[in-house]
């Protein structure tokens, strides 16, 4: 689909001025109605560094922020999150939400006790990435796929919780030669103490046999960490904006509104296939 590019206004760029400052975003320092804006253009919306606020609502607010204002920048926590496009971040909150959604979906469809770890992980994975890479695979298949895929890399256990808290998507898995293997999604939270895991264990979502939880120590998923590997997703991510799924490419029909002036013409936003690890700590 061909979309007309919309420019808010022609920026007056001087050769000496570097206008790409905070987070590498362009400073809009032209005057509007006689007032210096000094806003940063994030594509989908404008960020006012003086207020620490967006000037318009997050177009992806439907992805549910619960306790946060849709005008807030990265949940008021710029040390943790980054919102590179002014759209909804794939971050700790998104992972937490996807994990809860997956538990609900699996419980509703399969009840509360049967072994459905693969379905829970895949449901959350699809919600966060838009990728069907793990679809229709059992737990052993998911582990094998993550082992072989270029979209995953292994992470040491002691790095898992920090990375997930920073918005990385990490799936824990252990294949079994006899019987079924097991997978769980690492989720944000505090590591738990565990003697069986050698001191501490990351927290995870698990929809395995007799398990339906969105966050609990992984010492409740495996009796020990022996053989459990952690796979960080590094492939293209996706989300929804105005109910449309994106995974890179151009998003049409995003209206941008600023105080005093409404830009009714849809503004196309080009999303360059964001990777989750790019949306981590600034």
């Amino acid at each position, binding site marked *: 689909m061909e979309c007309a590019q919309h420019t808010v206004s022609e920026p007056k760029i001087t050769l000496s001025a570097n206008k790409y400052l905070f987070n590498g975003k362009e400073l809009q320092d032209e005057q509007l109605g006689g007032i210096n804006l000094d806003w940063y253009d994030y594509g989908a919306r404008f960020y006012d560094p003086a207020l620490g606020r967006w000037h318009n609502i997050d177009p992806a607010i439907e992805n549910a922020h619960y306790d946060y204002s849709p005008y807030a920048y990265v949940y008021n926590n710029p040390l943790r999150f980054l919102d590179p496009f002014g759209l909804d971040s794939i971050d700790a909150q998104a992972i937490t939400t996807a994990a809860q959604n997956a538990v609900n979906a699996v419980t509703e469809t399969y*009840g509360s*006790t*049967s*072994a459905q*770890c693969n379905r829970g992980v895949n449901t959350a994975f699809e919600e966060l990435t838009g990728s069907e890479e793990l679809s229709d695979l059992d*737990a052993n298949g998911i582990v094998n796929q993550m082992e072989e895929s270029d979209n995953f890399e292994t992470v040491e256990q002691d790095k898992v919780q920090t990375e997930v808290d920073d918005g990385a998507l990490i799936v824990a898995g*252990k294949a*079994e030669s006899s*019987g*079924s*293997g*097991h997978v769980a999604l690492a989720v944000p939270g505090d590591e*738990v*103490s*565990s*003697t*069986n*895991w050698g001191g501490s264990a990351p927290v995870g979502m698990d929809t*395995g*046999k*007799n*398990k339906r939880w969105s966050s609990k120590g992984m*010492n*409740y*998923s*495996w*009796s020990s960490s022996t053989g459990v590997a952690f796979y960080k997703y590094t492939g293209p991510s996706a989300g929804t904006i105005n109910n449309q799924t994106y995974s890179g490419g151009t998003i049409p029909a995003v209206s941008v509104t600023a105080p005093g002036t409404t830009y009714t013409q849809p503004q196309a936003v080009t999303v360059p296939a964001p990777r989750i690890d790019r949306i981590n700590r600034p």
Partner: protein
Amino acid sequence: MRNIVIYTIIALSLFQCKSRNSSHSVSTISSIQPTNGELIGNKLDDIDKKQEEFGMTLEFDVIEKLTLDLNGDNQEDIIEIERIRQWIDPGDFHRITIKISGKKKTEFLNTSGWVAVGDYETQFVKGFVSNTVISSKYVSLQQASENDMLLFCFGYTYASQPGLLSIINLLKQDGPKLIFNDNYHLYKFEDINNDGAKDITVTTADMDGPKEKSMLSVYELINGWFFKKLDQ
């Protein structure tokens, strides 16, 4: 002469094949008839090895004490259910200590944890909990035959496997013995071969039940030990 040698080799080969086939068919006729049994599944934890692995001394709190006369000698026998003190990993209890009069005290340790007997653990065997010889929150004591008193313990469910099904025969001549310890759901507990001893059928299937016969395994209780029934 050369033909004789060739015919002899062929004849010997055929005889060998026949022998192999007949020995194979013998082994599948029925259960192995046991003389001495052995544990089915895996050993439980060794406390010294675990303490070394954890780098700490394990201490236990008794959370339930069952007192009864197991061997009919009018003496108290005691089963203690114990939990590792200040334990932060799964499991409602981790050690069972059994003191039967006239026998040496025996301990069984599982740091991965057993759980209280509940509906999930006994989902396939109706009335299993209520049929227990003595009321307990954590274990189920079942009279399997005149000479066999079995203590059933159910492990915490890790990964996508059933929890451990641990069965201790309390009335072995040389003291309580762990006779079964593997990741299965108990599916049936009844006398299948009509020898007066209750046998077990186990499965890894979920609550909706095994979809095919191959998902069930039968173990017959013979001379106080379990033996896998091969022609099930």
